[in-house]
Structure formats: C-alpha cells, structure tokens
C-alpha cells in the first residue's frame, strides 16, 4: 500500500503554474496586449477578466514550453449593434497590428515568439453581455466562415470556477485542483498537442468537477487533515472510465451545456479511453505496490520525469533528526 504523498506534492510543485517567473511574464504580456487594444481600438469600450485555467488556478506548465493565458474582453455593446461577431473580433485584431495575431474561430490569439518557437500566447475571448444578468455571448467564427458558423454563443466563462468554489471545501478544493493538474500533465505527456487527439483541459476539469471525491484522513491527535492524492486521482480516473459508454461525455455544467469532448472523433475517443484505462490500471498498481521505488517508477511512466523517483526509504528522506523540543517535566 503506497501513498507517495510527498512525491505528489513535489510533482504538483514542479508542474503548477505558480505566481513565479512564467506567470509574471504572462501577466506582463497580457497587460501589454490589453493596453494596446485600449489605445488603438477606438470603441466600443471593454473590461477584461481572467478565465480558463489561469482563473481556475489549475494551470500546468506546458511540456512544449508554450505558455498560454486566457483573457475575456467584455465589450460594452450589444449583439444587435454587432450582428456579425467576426467584425468585432477583426477590430481587436486591427488594434494589435505589429503583433503576431491570429483570428481563430473561438478567440483572437496573440503569439510571442523567440527563435520561431512559440513561447507565450494570449487568447483573447470577445464577449458582449447577455440579457441574463452575469451571462455573456461569445463571439464565435473566423473570417470567411459561412453565416451558420458565425454566432454569438450564450455562455458563462466563469461558471467552472464558481462551481469549483461551491462544490468543495477549502482543502478538498486544493486537492481537486492538484488532481486536475496531474490529469492535464498526463494529457500533455501522452497525447499529441495538435488537433483534437488530446482531451481538452477544460473537459478534464469539468470531469473532475463532476466525479472527483476527496480522499483524506483526519489525524485526531494533531487535529490535522491529510490528503491522499494517489487515491483521489485513482478514484476519479476510475469514475471517468465507468462513464465512458463508449464515449466519455462531459458537459459544461452551465449553458451552453456543450459536451466538452464532442470534437473528438470516434477513433480519437477510443484512444483516449484506452489510455485512460492504462492510467487506471497503472494507478491501481502503484496503490497496491508495497515498494515505493517501483510505485514511483510506475507513475513516472504516465506523468513523466517531473514525478520524483523514490530511491531511498521514506524515513531516510525525512529531514531534521535533531529538533528542538518544548517538552519538560
């Protein structure tokens, strides 16, 4: 019976997108882009907000070095004033002349490149307010799309974050975030980045929101709660597999209630489910393994080098053999 919680914590520290270098750079880029749009666009006015994994704090460092940040631009206008969503997106693209910008169907993407390697990109999502309080319409479509492909899609980009906050209590929520990060890193390490072969991060997040159960134990003496990430992750993967009949359908818990894996083909889906099965088997094997070294090697097969290898016994790893004691008699 292995636990490897120390290793999972180190793994989490290694992969999480924290408030350190990369994230600071990302925020700088984001602010520069937004300032530029405000300067050049000349109306309508907008407010911006973080969304996606940045807002959910479930971001992981990309394996290929392509950091991204999702920003929502909430324009103070209406659908009726902008019947063509692509027109408004084009205004944003125009304001960013000089940047490497691409008008893509779901958003406007700004790339920062160094030696032709994509290093950072900022996804700008263009919204106008909906009639329902708090809801928005997302500008969908790209230049040259036929009319049916262009739409103002009714959505709530902050719903996942709100759902995460209301579904789990503080420490359990953190475990949920960690487990999402582990799944995302597994996705990045095991699927090609291009196309729809890889399950979307937002889909994995929504799946966790639906099926994650915290795994923890209370130490009644110390009055502390300790989380068991391996068990929680294994439980979630098992639940996802159980719902893959045969497609895994995970719907956004808010309008438009899309199936977040809908773009995966039958073949892509079957590969995804098969790999999920392998992960499930691997996690169970690690859980049952009495040897922490071999359990850690099993996990490294799925999560890559950032998951630490256990070489010595766990007690030898404990630091501080001489500590100050307040006990007296």
């Amino acid at each position, binding site marked *: 019976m292995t*636990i490897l*919680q*120390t290793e*999972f*914590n180190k793994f989490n520290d290694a992969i999480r997108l924290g408030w350190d270098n990369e994230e600071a750079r990302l925020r700088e880029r984001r602010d520069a882009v937004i300032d530029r749009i405000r300067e050049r666009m000349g109306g309508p006015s907008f407010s911006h907000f973080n969304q996606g994994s940045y807002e959910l704090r479930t971001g992981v460092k990309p394996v290929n070095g392509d950091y991204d940040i999702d920003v929502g631009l909430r324009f103070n206008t209406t659908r009726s004033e902008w019947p063509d969503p692509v027109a408004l997106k084009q205004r944003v693209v125009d304001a960013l002349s000089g940047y490497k910008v691409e008008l893509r169907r779901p958003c406007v993407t700004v790339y920062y490149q160094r030696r032709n390697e994509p290093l950072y990109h900022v996804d700008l999502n263009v919204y106008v307010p909906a009639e329902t309080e708090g809801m928005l319409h997302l500008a969908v479509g790209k230049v040259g799309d036929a009319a049916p492909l262009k739409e103002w899609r009714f959505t709530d980009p902050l719903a996942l974050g709100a759902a995460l906050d209301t579904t789990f209590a503080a420490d359990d929520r953190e475990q949920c975030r960690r487990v999402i990060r582990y799944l995302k890193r597994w996705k990045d390490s095991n699927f090609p980045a291009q196309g729809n072969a890889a399950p979307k991060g937002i889909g994995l997040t929504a799946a966790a929101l639906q099926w994650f159960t915290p795994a*923890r*134990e209370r*130490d*009644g*003496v*110390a*009055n*502390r709660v*300790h*989380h*068991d990430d391996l068990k929680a992750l294994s439980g979630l993967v098992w639940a996802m597999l159980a719902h893959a009949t045969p497609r895994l359908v995970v719907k956004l818990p808010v309008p438009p209630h899309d199936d977040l894996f809908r773009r995966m083909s039958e073949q892509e889906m079957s590969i995804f489910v098969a790999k999920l099965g392998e992960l499930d088997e691997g996690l169970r094997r690690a859980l049952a393994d009495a040897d922490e070294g071999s359990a850690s090697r099993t996990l490294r097969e799925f999560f890559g080098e950032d998951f630490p290898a256990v070489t010595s016994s766990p007690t030898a790893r*404990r*630091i*501080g*053999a001489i*500590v*100050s*004691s*307040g*006990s*007296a*008699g």
Partner: protein
Amino acid sequence: MHADDLTATAELLCAAGLLEQGCVTPADALLEPWARLHGVVAAIEGVAHVDGHALALRLGLTPRFPGRLPTVFVLDARLHGRIPHVFQHGHVCYQEYEGVLLDRYQPVAVAREALARAVETIRRGLTGENRADFIEELALYWPGAAEGLGFFAADAQIQPILRFVLPWAGTFAFVRDRAQARELLVAPMPLRVPEVMAPLEAWFDDTVTPGLYIPLEDVPRPPDPFPLGPWTRAQVAQLIRHNLSDGQRRRLEQLTRGLKTRSTFVILRVPRPRGGDHLVGIRYDDIRGAHPLARATGSATMTQFRVERRDPGYLVPRGGGEPPLRAKRVLLVGCGAIGGHLAGELVRCGVGHLTLVDPDVLRPENAYRHVLGAPSLFVLPAKSLQLAAEIQQRYRGVEVSGLAASIEDALDQGAIDVTRYDLVLSATGDPNVDRGLNERLHRLEHRPPLLFTWLEPLGIGGHALVVQRSSPGCLDCLFTPHPLDASPVLTNRAAFAAAGQVFTRELAGCGNAFTPYSSLDALRTAELAGRLAVEVLGGRLRETLLRSWKGDGAAFHAAGLRTSPRYEMEASALERGGADVVAAGCKVCGGR
C-alpha cells in the same frame, strides 16, 4: 449580631410562636455554664410536644446567628445522656454543621427549622428508633480524654500492640510492633547513626507497655441502659464478649493469659452502622491477678480514653483517597516539578507503595518550581531520595523508597523490576528518555500500564498519556507522522506548539538552558496525570488515552511562538481525552 439585637431577635422568635408558652430566657440564666459553654448570648424557652410528651426546651442564639445554627437544649435532666444525641446540659446535637447552607435573611425560619430538626432527633430517641446512633457516634459518647495517636493498621485480627511515649510530642503512640515504633522515633532525625539510635531504643524500652487491639465484629448492640459517664469494667467486658466470634473469643483468651505487667490497655475497633469504624481505648492500672478481660477474677482500675487515628486505613478515605489503592505499587520516574507534585498527590490519593527514580540533585535555580523548594545548603541528596524521605516522614504506613539512578541504569542493572508495579509513571519531561522507556517496556509480555506526562513552555499546556495493553497505541505513535503527511517532521503530534521552533532560554550561557514554565503549570499537569493514574489504578480506565490541558497561550504568543492545529481544539475535548493515539507505521507497537 450584637447581643441587644439578638435579644430583640429572641423576642421575635417568641412572638412567632416557635415554642408554646415561649418566653425570653432571663439574663442571669445566660451566665450559667450551659450558655457559656455553647456561646449562647440570648435564648428562648418553652414547651414542644414530642411523641405525646410535653417537653421543656430551650433555643439558644450565638452572636453569629443566623449565620450559625441555634443550639437546642432539653431541660428535663432525666433525658440527658439517655437518648442519642442529647448530651451534657441537654444539648441536642441535631445537625452536623458541615454541609448546611443557611438563609441568613430569614432568622425566624432558620430557628423554626432548626427546632423542628431537634424535636425530630428527640422523638427518634424517645421511640428508640435511633438507638444504633449510640454506636454510630460512640467516639462522642466515650468518656475520657484523647490519650494518644494510633499508627497501627486497624485490621480484622485481634493482636498484641504496643504503647510508648513519643518523646517530642509528649503523648502516647500506639504501634504494631517495635519496628514501627523505631520508624516513628527516627523519622525526624537527620542522621541515623548508632549514637542517635541507642538512646531512642532505650527510651522506647523505658516507656513501652503491651496491650491488645480488639476489633469487634458487625455492629455491636449498645449496652442497655447506655452508660452515662464512665462505664463499669463489667459493661466494657460485656460489650467486648458479646460482639466477638467464637474464634476471636478463643484468641482473646490466649492473648490475655499470663499477663506480666501491672498496667495494660485495650484499643477497641467498633464498626459503625453506616460504615466506617471507631477506635476507643480502655486503660487498666494497678492490676492484681489476671488480665481484667480474662475470666479469672482480679482487680484493676479502669480508665476510658480516646485515640486520635493516624492509620492510613482511616486517614486516606478522609482525604478523599481510595482505600483499594493502598495495595497498589507505583513506579514514578522523574522527580522534577511535575514528578514532585505527583509523588505527594499519589500518596494522598491512597497509593500505598511508591518508588521514586531520579538521579539528579535539586538545583537552586529550580527552587521556585519544585515542591521541595530550595535545596539544603549542607547536603545535596538526589531529588528522589529527598522526596521519598519527605513523604515518608509525613505519611506513616506508606511505603516510599527513592533510587538515585537514571531509569535506564536502574533497568539495566536490575535494580527495578517493572513487572512488580501496577503502574509505571514517567514525569521526566524528556521525550528521549520516555520513548526509550516506552520501547523497552513494550517488549515485556506482562507490562503494567505506562503513563507519560509532560508539559509545554510558557503555560500553553500539559499532557498525560496512558498506554495500556488492552487497546492499541503507544508513546511512539505520537512521534510517528501520519502516513499521508506530505511533509513529515520529527515532532510530537500531541504538541500545542507548532513544530520547528526553539523554546529553551538560557539564564547564563552554556549548559543553563531551561524551558520556561511555572510551578502552577507543573501542578496542573501533575493533577491531570494524577487523576488519570487513579482511574487506571482503580480499574476504571482500561484503554490507551491521551488527555491534555490547554492554557490561554498569552505568554506563549507574546514570546513570538506559534501554536499547532491541535491547540485549536476545544479545551473540554482535550481534557476528556482521545483514544485515537495509535499511528500506522509506529516502529514500537506497529500501530496495533
């Protein structure tokens, strides 16, 4: 209340009709002995109807009335000493003072209820209902003065005992044997050298008189009529003979044969109807012929006397201690601030055998948090020896021994066999010593319960953990991190202080580091551990249990120290204790 006010109160009581034909007692009567003896400064007298008889009564008030009960007297001299609870001058003992709360704003009601209780006491006497109270209160009715201190164990067997004069107390001591007498004689002596011992032995030989201890069986019938004043030889002999078994009677005959002295004495144990017993004494002088209690005739003068009891069988229950603990043996490791308090408290709780183990001498800088106070300027014996001697001197009949050694050495050298104890209690406060002891004792198949107690700095709290075989967990479990702890550190999971801080202070450089805590913290910890020990020894607690007290933390936080999540728990829950001590992966007990 002032005398004039009391007279006014007395008039008020008359007017309230407490007694028929009631009137205020004339001032000159208040100069008589009955009034002076009981401090009565105002009184009323009149008639009350008791069981069909018209009885003349008097109700006296003292200056403390109504904060004190009034005194009630039966004026009919024929009843004095004839019914239980009616004494000299007809004073009626109707209520123990202890255990009453008086309505100080309602003097009339207090007097009325007091009178009603006194009348009920007299009524029960007249009908004979409370005849057994003569025995219940025998020590009160037993004439004669207190003549000495009884140190021997008042058990069930008739046996010879000795009386001698305690030189510095100028009173008799009644002891089991010569050895017990020697113990009493040498107790105050700082040195036990022959030069000191020889005169004491000689003194004993000069003053010793043989006598008998006779425990009566069941509750004896009081003589009828109950003797007023001194009893006759025949009345005493009858009380004894009528209340012995055949076996005891034969033993008494053997022991009274061939008396060689002109004087002897008997200490009688008289069981009380409502539990407990009395010890009363009879002295025989100028004996001609056989023992006055033997069947043969002879002559002797007889004097009754009372005994002040100093035997643990009597004193321990009086102190709230538990008599069954007398047979219990406790090994106390560590005689510091906690251990010092604990040793005394365990004895006061009734523990009969105590072994103290501590190699250290008392250090002057700890004087203000050790029960022994400042060390003597002359000799520096180990705390264990000094504490054992102190306790032994104050509590006769308790076996206390000290061992000036570390517990590790004592065990290595076989000086201590822990299996001979009913409880091993460690108050060293040193987690390394305690964990060693825990591991060592865990290997023993027949180990006694193990109790560890320690405190934390600056009044933040203290702990007591008892480890028992019938349930899982041990001390090392507390030092075993939870298997899911992502950042395990070496710490005590029970600690109120957050891990990774330094608590010791230094008064004067190297080697003088000390943990700051006060004597009150030690006392509170000792109390927690002591109560736990008594529950375990009494067989009322059979599981492994951790209890803690938590202080307010003001001084602790002011010192810039941080508390642990455990400190956030409810104080009441911490004191009630938790049995979930066990930790999977404990290297000593294996979490089982």
